[in-house]
């Protein structure tokens, strides 16, 4: 789960990483109130879960209630890489002497957290990694060792920070960032830029914070931060129903069990000339109720013309899937969707029997994945 800048900064604050004071604003009126409360020179920042908002006009300096309200009006509603701005973060403007970059992320290759730090901020960090890799210090932390002060020293001295006060402040931020990473079950905590002000104060001017979805049960307060309104409405509905769903742009609705098979089904539908409408993974459980939910999600997409169930049972049982399909046909208005069903694996025979007995003309059984894909593509035409 990706957090907005202001949410990540809230978590930074909790572990003691210095950030600027600010207020959230969802409307020009909110922005005006925030300006009155905070006073002085402010920055109005679009809160979107994507990069490049600066170039897109999503970050503006302002001073005074009128100016802030106007800038808020300008920014709210902007479309930044397909994300519509609905929230703002109004914070005290900071003078910037230097810009650094600091992050910790889960390196799944090394199976260790990885710190990255450079004092060559202000440009795209990927560019530095590419062009001047020696300027980017990378350092793994062994999870069984945990954070030790030498880790901060390697970053600081490796990055060429020489001012003792800066060294001290960054050391403390590095330690706290590690704590945030572990305590909040993060997979990414990024400060870009980490700035030094003219009076020598080091602080986080932005935040990129991603928390492991699987660990949200340990962090109900973080889970509540999710902005369900920001997502695609069908994807939001899918999340609500507990269905793994990604919208694509075609006409063949696809339901598979297991991410791999579902992905492969999307590939095969494309391979035989069809256009997949979505990726939808029933997941491991695959109860009848889950099947109904999945169908309800998929049929919200008006582009869908046919539906392809590609099920290879393991922990998912073919009879449960069949029951779910029949239940959905009962409860939902599914009359306009031809449903191609390919069932194999655990209790598949029983499932095929149940479907055959139902005798619904909209159900088209197919014996193989490839044949199922072809049939679904035909039926969507």
């Amino acid at each position, binding site marked *: 789960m990706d957090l907005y800048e202001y949410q990540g900064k809230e978590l930074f604050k909790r572990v003691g990483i210095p950030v600027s004071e600010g207020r959230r604003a969802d409307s020009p009126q909110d922005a005006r109130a925030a300006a009155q409360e905070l006073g002085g020179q402010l920055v109005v920042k679009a809160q979107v*879960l994507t990069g490049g908002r600066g170039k897109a006009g999503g970050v503006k300096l302002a001073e005074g209630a009128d100016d802030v309200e106007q800038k808020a009006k300008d920014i709210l509603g902007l479309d930044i890489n397909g994300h519509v701005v609905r929230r703002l973060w109004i914070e005290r403007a900071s003078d910037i002497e230097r810009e650094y*970059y600091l*992050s*910790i*992320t*889960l390196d*799944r*290759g090394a*199976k*260790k957290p*990885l710190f*990255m730090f450079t004092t060559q901020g202000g440009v*795209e*960090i*990927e560019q530095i*990694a590419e062009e001047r890799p020696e300027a980017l210090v990378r350092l793994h932390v*062994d*999870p*069984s060792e945990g954070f030790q002060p030498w880790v901060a020293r390697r970053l600081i001295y490796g990055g060429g920070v020489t001012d003792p006060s800066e060294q001290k402040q960054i050391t403390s931020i590095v330690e706290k960032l590690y704590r945030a990473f572990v305590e909040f*079950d993060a*997979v*990414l905590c*990024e400060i870009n830029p980490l700035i030094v002000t003219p009076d020598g104060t080091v602080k986080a001017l932005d935040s*990129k914070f*991603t928390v*492991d*979805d*699987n*660990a949200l049960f340990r962090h109900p307060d973080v889970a509540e931060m999710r902005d369900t309104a920001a997502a695609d409405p069908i994807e939001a509905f899918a999340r609500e129903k507990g269905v793994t769903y990604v919208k*694509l742009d075609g006409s063949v609705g696809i339901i*598979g*069990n*297991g*991410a*791999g*098979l*579902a*992905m*492969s089904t*999307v*590939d*095969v*539908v*494309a*391979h035989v000339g069809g256009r*997949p409408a979505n*990726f939808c993974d029933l*997941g491991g459980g695959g109860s009848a109720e889950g099947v109904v939910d999945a169908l309800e999600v998929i049929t919200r997409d008006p582009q869908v013309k046919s539906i392809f169930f590609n*099920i*290879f*049972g*393991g*922990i*998912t049982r073919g009879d449960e899937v069949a029951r779910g399909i029949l239940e959905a046909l009962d409860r939902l208005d599914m009359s306009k969707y031809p449903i191609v069903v390919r069932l*194999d*694996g*655990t209790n598949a025979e029983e499932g095929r029997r149940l479907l055959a007995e139902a005798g619904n003309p909209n159900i088209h059984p197919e014996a*193989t*994945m*490839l044949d199922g894909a072809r049939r679904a593509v035909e039926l969507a035409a």
Partner: protein
Amino acid sequence: MAIVVDNDTRLVVQGLTGSEGRFHGLRNRAYGTNLVAGVTPGKGGQDVDGVPVFDTVADAVDKAGANTSLIFVPARFAGDAMYEAIDAGIETVICITEHVPVHDMLGIYTYFRPKGVTMVGPNCPGVLSPGKANVGIIPAEIFSEGVVGLVSRSGTLTYQIGHELTQLGLGNSTIVGIGGDPIVGSSFIDILEKFEADPETELIVLVGEIGGDEEEKAAQYIGEHMTTPVLAYIAGFSAPPGKAMGHAGAIISGSSGTAVAKKEALEAKGIEVGATPTEVAQLVAKRLK
């Protein structure tokens, strides 16, 4: 021979009294797997269809001689269950549970690696050595004994490919679903190494998917260390670019991670990559003719 599980497997199911644990545990036993015990705290002394249940894995090891554990407990208890199995002296730990927090796995991975334990999963379908033992949720009836080793990050995709092989009259030495999570106990390379050492395995099918760089690393490893031929399938060519993990993620993985990048990395080492599961099975058949 076979790898990971075989006739010497003495299985304990952690969570045997739960509905999934019971269903698949007994199914594994019905297949011929030597299921010696179950573990459910507080239910020690009971039995599940004749299989003795213990309060702790240590009891299952001491009193029933378990050497392999299959984990079916809910995600928030799975880390604890894995540690319990490792510290009770279990040699092979196979965790089916999905949604295990990645920080839990980070600690467990670091902990078990130096101990020489074999761990498969979490979020995996388990391991099947046809004709010998089935440990997990793989529907064994679609596989037959044979010479093809199968290793995959995806459960159901594995069944699909195994199924296609069976249709062509080809069998498997062992099928290993390593799981799709960012951190799993055994990587492609760990399993490839075991297959390479297995005289029964004449050819290996590697089934990968988008994300991470395990397929790229496997390609490198195969090029450098393996004589057994390998074929591959990658899922996710039509997947939309994933949501950005911020700059750091992009820097780590570089351009790797896409299906195309994985395919190219494999082909650069002379490993054929099938376009569909059906095509992979056909390629295998051609090679083994």
